[in-house]
C-alpha cells in the first residue's frame, strides 16, 4: 500500500512512501505509524484519512493497492 502525508506530518514521514506490511484497517495502519514515529501520535490522532478522494473511517478495510492519504487538520485561508 502507498501512504501519502501532508503538512506537519512531513516533519515525521516522507511525503509519500510504500509499506510492505498489510493492514486490515486504517486504524491498524495508524497504530503502526505511531509505533514507527511515537512523536507523531498526537497529530495522527487529529487526522482524517482518505482513499480515492473519499474520506474513510478508522474501520475502513484497506486493499493491497490502495493509496491512503493522511490529512492533518486543515489550515487553508
Amino acid at each position: 500500500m502507498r501512504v501519502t502525508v501532508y503538512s506537519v506530518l512531513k516533519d515525521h514521514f516522507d511525503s509519500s512512501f510504500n509499506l510492505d506490511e498489510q493492514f486490515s484497517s486504517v486504524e491498524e495502519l495508524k497504530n503502526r505509524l505511531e509505533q514507527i514515529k511515537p512523536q507523531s501520535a498526537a497529530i495522527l490522532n487529529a487526522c482524517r484519512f482518505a482513499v480515492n478522494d473519499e474520506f474513510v473511517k478508522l474501520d475502513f478495510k484497506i486493499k493491497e493497492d490502495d493509496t491512503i492519504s493522511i490529512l492533518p487538520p486543515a489550515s487553508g485561508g
Partner: protein
Amino acid sequence: MIPSPSYPQPVEDNFEYISDRCLDIVGLLANSHDPKAGALVLFSGDVRDNNIGKDVAYLEYEAHTSLASKMIKEILEEAIVKWSLKLAVAQHRVGKVGVGESAVLVITSSPHRKEAYQANRHIIDRIKHEVPIWKCEVFTDGTKQWGNNCNCSTITGKADKHIYESSSTEKA
C-alpha cells in the same frame, strides 16, 4: 450557479478551484455580475506581514488537490441551494504566496445582500476548517511553522466536527 445567458459563466467544468498561479481577482469579479443579483460580495484572504508577533516573509500552501477541488465544488453547490444564490465562486492558491497577495477568494451574489454576506462567510469558514489545504508560515528570521487554525477536534473530540465563526451570525 447559472447567471443570465448574456453574462459570462465563471465556473466552468474545468475551473481551477486550486491554483498555483496568482488569483485573477479582477477577472473573476468582472465575470460574476448578474442582472438578477443586487448584491455581490467578494472576500479575499490576503497574506499578512505578521503573525504571533513575528514578521512573515511569505506563506507556502499545499493541498490534496483532487479532494480539495471536489469539496470546494460541493460546498459552493450547497451554499447556492441554501441561500438561493445567483452565483458562488471560490479559488485557493497553492505554492508560495507573498505578503499582500490573495491566498483565497470567495465571491457570492444574490438578489439582496443578506444572503450573499451570510453565504460568503459560511463558504470561507468551511474552506478553512474542512478542505484539505495547509499553510506553512515562513518568517523573516528563517523559521517556519505549519498553520493550525483548525483545532476544533480538541473541543469537539472529532476530526470532522467543527465550530464555525459564522454560526452565531447565521442565527442572528
